[in-house]
């Protein structure tokens, strides 16, 4: 009897395409870091890292093919962490 896997198969080729994307984004982030964009530099680096994470999460970790609840809690945790960080910086950013 088949288990309660949703059973969605990500075929070999697709996995490899995702991997190539990840390598490309890695090269992008290294190249972009050569330019001095002041405050934007860190933001760019984090943005690219987040895109890579999105790819790993959606395809390698199969999140794209899971039910809405799984997707919701993953997003929820990410949002929670970001909100905590923002709240923390309400101290450091406005500290006199």
């Amino acid at each position: 009897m088949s288990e309660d896997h949703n059973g969605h198969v990500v075929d070999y080729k697709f996995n490899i395409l995702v991997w190539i994307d990840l390598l490309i984004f890695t090269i992008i982030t290294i190249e972009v870091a050569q330019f001095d964009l002041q405050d934007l530099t860190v933001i760019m680096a984090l943005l690219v890292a987040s895109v890579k994470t999105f790819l790993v999460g959606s395809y390698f970790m199969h999140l794209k093919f899971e039910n809405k609840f799984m997707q919701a809690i993953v997003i929820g945790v990410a949002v929670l962490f970001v909100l905590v960080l923002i709240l923390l910086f309400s101290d450091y950013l406005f500290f006199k």
Partner: protein
Amino acid sequence: MTSIPTQREYVNFFQVKKGFLSWITTHDHKRIALLYFYTVCTFFVVAFILGLLMRLELIAPGKTLFEAQTYNQIFTLHGVIMIFLFIIPGIPAIFGNFALPMMLGAPDVSFPRVNLLSWYLYMIGGALALSTLLYGDGPADTGWTFYAPYSVRTGTNVTVAVLAAFVLGFSSILTGLNFLVTIHRMRAPGMTWFKMPLFPWALYATSWIQVLATPVVGITLLMIVAERQFGIGLFDPSLGGDPVLYQHLFWIYSHPAVYIMVLPAMGLVSETIPVFVKKSIFGYKVIVYSSLAIAFIGYFVWGHHMYTSGMSSAARIIFSVLTFIVAIPSAVKVFNWVSTLYKGSIDIKTPLLYSLAFIFQFTIGGLTGLVVGALATDIHVHDTYFVVGHFHYVMFGGTGFAFIGAIHYYFPKIWGRMYNIKWANIGFTFLFIGFNLVYFPMLVLGIMGMPRRYYDYLPEFTTPNVISTIGSWVMALGLIIVIVNLINGHKGAKASNNPWGSVTLDWTHTDSPPTLYNFDETPVVTRGPYDYKNYEEYLSETSKNR
């Protein structure tokens, strides 16, 4: 199938396998609950005695029994044990473990072996915490909050104490994880989310906090250890660190932690009131949403422990606003509980007394919380006895009383016996009077200006301190009566399967004590969780109530 108990062999979960080894290698959630019960209660008594010693020191100004340093170590150990070894694990690990699967109609939790691991980690953490008494400069003297820079500089056994808390945190995380999956996956057929009783809902909200908040304090405590070992300036200002950053990280967990402490207790109150009023809870869905709201908003209020630490004004204002918002769902629950009592058929049994005391004391705790939650008033009462009074009202008067009430509620289910109700109520009375004698004067002392964590005080603070200390003896007497009465209860009259007449699955479809897998066959749920309409007829139909 007609289940006539005498025909089938009834083997309860105590009888299934015997011997010490069968207990410490068990996978049965009920046995794990009892392993926790005995160890948690032992730690509670140890910390309670430390509290009595503190009150004894404070009966008069100046040195009474201890040096200042020893006093600091006593209140630190008192806090560490009470918080990490009693209040946080207490209700979830004991009553959650025992009752949750049964309330859901399940034979056990989703991961029984992880459950046992949680208890092993609990014991290791407890051993580590107590071991700090045995060597070096003795137990930590930093307060349970381990504030930097003192915690990274003091020679007392901070590293081991903090590692104990880390291990205990891991135990807590695994319990929360287990309960989340159990609630998602093991509800009986027909039990939709909104047919689930409120104790499981409370545990659900609590478990999310355990899973998401605890790791933050875990890593923070490891950083304390690292700073002590390597002398890096993470939190020590003389090395370029920011001590307020430590406070941020610590309270990012420790504030949600107080909701870990109180939500399960609120869940128990929501369970017991309908039973002894024979009426459905008022506003079931609202209580569900309130629990989830408290858990969620509770992540964003931690700065209210830090108003005087030097945070920016912007942060202080934001945290204060959010703190007032998080008070609302708690107040809503109090309103709902009281409304449930209205026009109900009230049966004053011991568990109800504890729930009523919870409502009274939690309300005082909650209202005093608004005083500390408001920026202007907090400046006056921060780090005074007002805060000590506030948190003991919610944690002890609230959760502590709910805990003792739960023992009295589940006693007949766990052991199949009934204790002496008269003596139970006498014990309650001493506890209630004693508790308020101890902690109400603290609210007064705080406003008068007595600082907390001091072993000495100005002469004008003497009278409330004396009252408080005498109150601690009244409380101790009450506790002794309660404990002795419960121990005697093991030889008390045999209890029926459902002596309180509850309509939840843990009472209606299980034996007292329950069998190994709880149910003869999986119940199918058709009624709401607190459907007391025609309850006598319903109870007479379910086989376990004959």
